[in-house]
C-alpha cells in the first residue's frame, strides 16, 4: 500500500517537503539569531552578506569547495576499490574474514581525529594525507556492508542457479552482485558522507586549502559568519554526494521503486 502511495507522488509533491523543511529551518534560524549577538549566532542575512564580501574580495569559496570535494571523492573511491574486493574475498574465505575483522574493527575504533595528525606527519600537508584519512573512515562501512550484503544472498537462489548449471562467475554476476546491492548502497552512502568528514578532519590537522581549512581559519579570526559559510558548503557537499548515490541506486535498482500492481 505504501508503494502505491509513493508512485502517486508527483515531482512537486516530492520537492515540497524539502522546500518547506529548508524554509522552516531558515525561519527558525532567524528567530534564534534575534536572541543572540551576531558573534555567537549570525542571522541568515548576515551570513549572506559575509558571502557577498568574500566574493567581492576575490576569495572564492569554490576553490576550497573543490579541494575538499576532490579529497573526499578520491578518498571514497580509494575506499571502494579496496573494500569491495576485500569484502568479496572475506565472503569467499571465512578464514580471511576471521583473520581481518579484528583489525578492521580495531582501526575503526580509533578516533579519526587522533589518527589524522599521524597521517599528516607521514604523508605531509598536501592532498595525499587527506585522501588517505577520507579513505580510512569510508572503508569500514563499505567493507562491512559489502560483506553483509554478500552473506545475505539467498542460499536457495544459489542452489537454483546451480541446478540451472550456472558457473561460479554466473552466480557472482547474476546473483551475488545484484542481491548485495541494497545493503551495499547503505554502506556506500554512509561511507561517502564519512569521507567528507574525513577530508575535513585532515584539513583541520594541517592544510592550506579546503573547507576544513576555511572553517579553522574563520575560527581563529572569530569570523562566525564565515564558519557558517563553511558549514553550509560542507552540508551541501555531503548532501550532493548522498543524492548522487541515491540517483545511482535508483538507476541500478529499478525493481526497488516499482509498485505492487
Amino acid at each position: 500500500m505504501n508503494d502505491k502511495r509513493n508512485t502517486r507522488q508527483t515531482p512537486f509533491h516530492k520537492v515540497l517537503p524539502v522546500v518547506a523543511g529548508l524554509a522552516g529551518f531558515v525561519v527558525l534560524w532567524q528567530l534564534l539569531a534575534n536572541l543572540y549577538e551576531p558573534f555567537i549566532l549570525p542571522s541568515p542575512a548576515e551570513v549572506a552578506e559575509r558571502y557577498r564580501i568574500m566574493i567581492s574580495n576575490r576569495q572564492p569559496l569554490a576553490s576550497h569547495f573543490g579541494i575538499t570535494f576532490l579529497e573526499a571523492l578520491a578518498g571514497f573511491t580509494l575506499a571502494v576499490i579496496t573494500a569491495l574486493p576485500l569484502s568479496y574475498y572475506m565472503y569467499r574465505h571465512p578464514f580471511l574474514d576471521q583473520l581481518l575483522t579484528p583489525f578492521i574493527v580495531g582501526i575503526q575504533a580509533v578516533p579519526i581525529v587522533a589518527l589524522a595528525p599521524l597521517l599528516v606527519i607521514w604523508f605531509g600537508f598536501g592532498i595525499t594525507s587527506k585522501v588517505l584519512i577520507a579513505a580510512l573512515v569510508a572503508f569500514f562501512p563499505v567493507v562491512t556492508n559489502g560483506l553483509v550484503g554478500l552473506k545475505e544472498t539467498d542460499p536457495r537462489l544459489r542452489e537454483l542457479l546451480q541446478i540451472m548449471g550456472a558457473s561460479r562467475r554466473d552466480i557472482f554476476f547474476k546473483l551475488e552482485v545484484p542481491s548485495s546491492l541494497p545493503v551495499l548502497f547503505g554502506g556506500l552512502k554512509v561511507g561517502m558522507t564519512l569521507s567528507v568528514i574525513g577530508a575535513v578532519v585532515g584539513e583541520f590537522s594541517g592544510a592550506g586549502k579546503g573547507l576544513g581549512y576555511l572553517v579553522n581559519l574563520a575560527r581563529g579570526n572569530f569570523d562566525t559568519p564565515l564558519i557558517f559559510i563553511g558549514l553550509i558548503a560542507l552540508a551541501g557537499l555531503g548532501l550532493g554526494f548522498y543524492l548522487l548515490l541515491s540517483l545511482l541506486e535508483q538507476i541500478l535498482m529499478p525493481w526497488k521503486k516499482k509498485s505492487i500492481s
Partner: protein
Amino acid sequence: MAAPAIEVHHVSLAYTSIDHPELRDIQLKVEDGELVSIVGPSGCGKSSLLRMIAGVLEPTAGHITIFGKEHARRHWSELSFVPQDSLLLPWRTVLDNVCLPLELDRDADRDTIVKKARAALALVNLSGVESKYPRQLSGGMRQRAALARALVGNARILLLDEPFAALDALTRNQLNLELLRIQAQTGITVVLVTHNIFEAVFLSDRVVVMGEKPGRILGEINIPLPKPRTLKMIGTPEFSHWVGSIQDLLETGWGDQDER
C-alpha cells in the same frame, strides 16, 4: 527398451552418521512421460530426495541415473526445477527471469532466448506481464513465471517441490489443471513433492508414499483415474478411495514409528 527417466538406486542420505540416516535405502523408478507424486509427512526427506535427483545434494550411499546415465552435472534442458517459493530473482523482470537458464549457455543469442521465453510464458498463460518485476505479481502469477522458467529449456524432466503449497485453494486448483494440460501437451516427465494427498491423487499417474525417521518409501499406489482429469472428479467415491488408500499407507508409517 528405453531407460527410465529417473532411477534411484538404493540411495541413503546421512548428514551426521550413516547409522542415523535422513533417508534410508530409497529405490524409485520414474518412466518417461510419467507424473509421479511423492507424499509424506514434513521432515521425511521428500525435498532432500528431489534435491538429490536435481544434483545439488550428494547421496551418502547409492546412486541416481537420469535416462540411464550416472549422476552428473545437470543441464536445464534435461532437468528443471520449480521450488516452493517461486524463487524468481527480484531484480529481474518476468521475461528476464524466464530467460535466465538460457542465458547461462554462452552460445545462445538474445533473440532466440527471448523468443523461447515468450513461448514459455504463453504456455503457462502469463503473456502480457513480461516487463513486470516479481513483486508486482500475485503469488499465482509468480508460480506461473517459475513454471515458465522451468519449461523454457524444453526439459525432459520437471521437478516440483510443493510449488503450489503457499497458494489459496482456487489458484492452486487452477494451476493444477494448468500443470496437467502442460504435461499432456509436452509429454514431460514430472516428479511432484507435496504434502497434499488430494493434489497428489488429482495430478498423478502414481503416488509414492514416504514415512519418516528415517525417511523411507512405505509403498507406491497407481492412480488409474481417467484423463483428462477435471475438478469434478475430486468428489467422486473413486477419488476418495485413492485418497483413503494413501492415508492408510501413511498411517502404517506412523505405526512403525510408534513401535520404535
